[in-house]
């Protein structure tokens, strides 16, 4: 509740007409960015707890951390580009099923994507990130490619999990 309350407060501030339209002063815009970042970052804990609950692991002693990738808009994610093996949980906030494509910034050239919910390997594709994106001021990512795969039938207000691993000949290079 405490974490949610902070999130709610940030959402309240963001409904001010200046925040909606972008007519705030620059200093205020910077403060809005700070508020949004802090609260979306805190939301990771809420998300992790929800996933624990849904997977009936609420009382488990295993400690798993789930991370948000807040820079996917500039094709940057420290957790996917620095790991050769990672799990991805995709949550659908709509009240109807959705099929969509997911793009994750990576370093390797070849990956296996396992749909953990249905336990099947799925087709994926590596696409280069355009040079101009790599040059965005302030972007510190090492990722030069994106891993693309299709997520079929995400349940309404539910999630699907995927395991992603760099193919063995690529692992050393990716980790390196």
């Amino acid at each position, binding site marked *: 509740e405490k974490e949610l309350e902070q999130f709610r407060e940030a959402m309240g501030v963001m409904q001010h007409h200046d925040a909606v339209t972008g007519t705030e002063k*620059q200093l205020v815009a910077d403060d809005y960015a700070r508020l949004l970042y802090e609260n979306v970052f805190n939301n990771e804990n809420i998300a992790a707890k929800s996933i624990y609950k849904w997977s009936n692991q609420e009382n488990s002693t295993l400690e798993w951390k789930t991370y*948000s*990738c807040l820079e996917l808009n500039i094709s940057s*994610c420290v*957790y996917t580009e620095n790991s050769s093996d990672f799990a991805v949980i995709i*949550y*659908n906030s709509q009240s109807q099923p*959705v099929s969509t494509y997911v793009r994750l910034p990576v370093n390797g050239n070849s990956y296996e994507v396992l749909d953990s919910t249905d336990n099947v390997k799925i087709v994926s594709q590596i696409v280069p990130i355009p040079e101009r994106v790599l040059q965005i001021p302030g972007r510190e990512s090492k990722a030069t490619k994106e891993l693309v795969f299709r997520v079929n039938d995400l349940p309404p207000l539910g999630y699907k999990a995927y395991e992603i691993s760099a193919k063995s000949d690529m692992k050393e290079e990716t980790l390196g």
Partner: protein
Amino acid sequence: ESTNFIGGDLYTITVDDSGHIAVQYNDQSDMNFVQSFHYYEGAEGNNKVYENRSSGAYIFRPKTSEIHNFVYERDYTIVKGPLVEEIHQNVNEWISQVVRVYKQEERIEFEWLIGPIPIDDKQGKEIVTKYTSNLNSNGEFYTDSNGRETLKRKRDHRPTWNLRLYEPIAGNYYPVTTKMYLKDKNKPLKFSVFTDRSQGGTSMKNGELELMIHRRLLNDDAFGVGEALNEVAYNTGLVVRGIHYVYGGNTKNLDAFTLKEKKLTLELALRPSIFVTPLTQTNIDNWR
């Protein structure tokens, strides 16, 4: 494999002689459109009287009604694979885009990357993208304005009074929360653009949809903020990246067409959340 187009079975998407993206529909509709980038120069004045008010955070007001074209670099690459086909295009030093078609999807994505907008010439600029189709829209277009009620707009016209526009560009710009579209006057054809954020849009010529995607201005507009809309990060102007979905075609089966449009709107506005957990070989079984 050497190739100069993308689009799968549904479209033929190429870069034309002027560098613009040309799209031909491979169905019976005979629809086509061209996508291009342009800019307006922002008005600047001393704000003492209305005529001298500058373009700024609150208002869009171009200096003249002239839309400026870019000289396109002939610089693009094509990526094709089992899931997605893409054109990566550099328009100039600070405008580039990816045009994309996914397998099993009917939309065309335009993922634009604009900025930092250069201001060495001390001139504020407002960047737009234009989709010029072969539809005869008869001066009419539709915007979802506040995200709830889609309204019909008619160029140089207001429904309840006789309009005389002294600033025809600004006077024809309307809010677009998630979508705007055109319909053909004679054929059952519709052409829609979906946005990933609120933007301003218009249709200055029949068949055209125009959306503003980035602005950098050097004067305050005297409506209260007291600052020019000249956002800076990392010691340079802002870079923006965003997506338009373009979807159009025959509306003989209007229910199915509308349903697809509604799905696209939601898909772009309420994208799924992604959470990542790094794994090792020793903990992967536990994670499962």
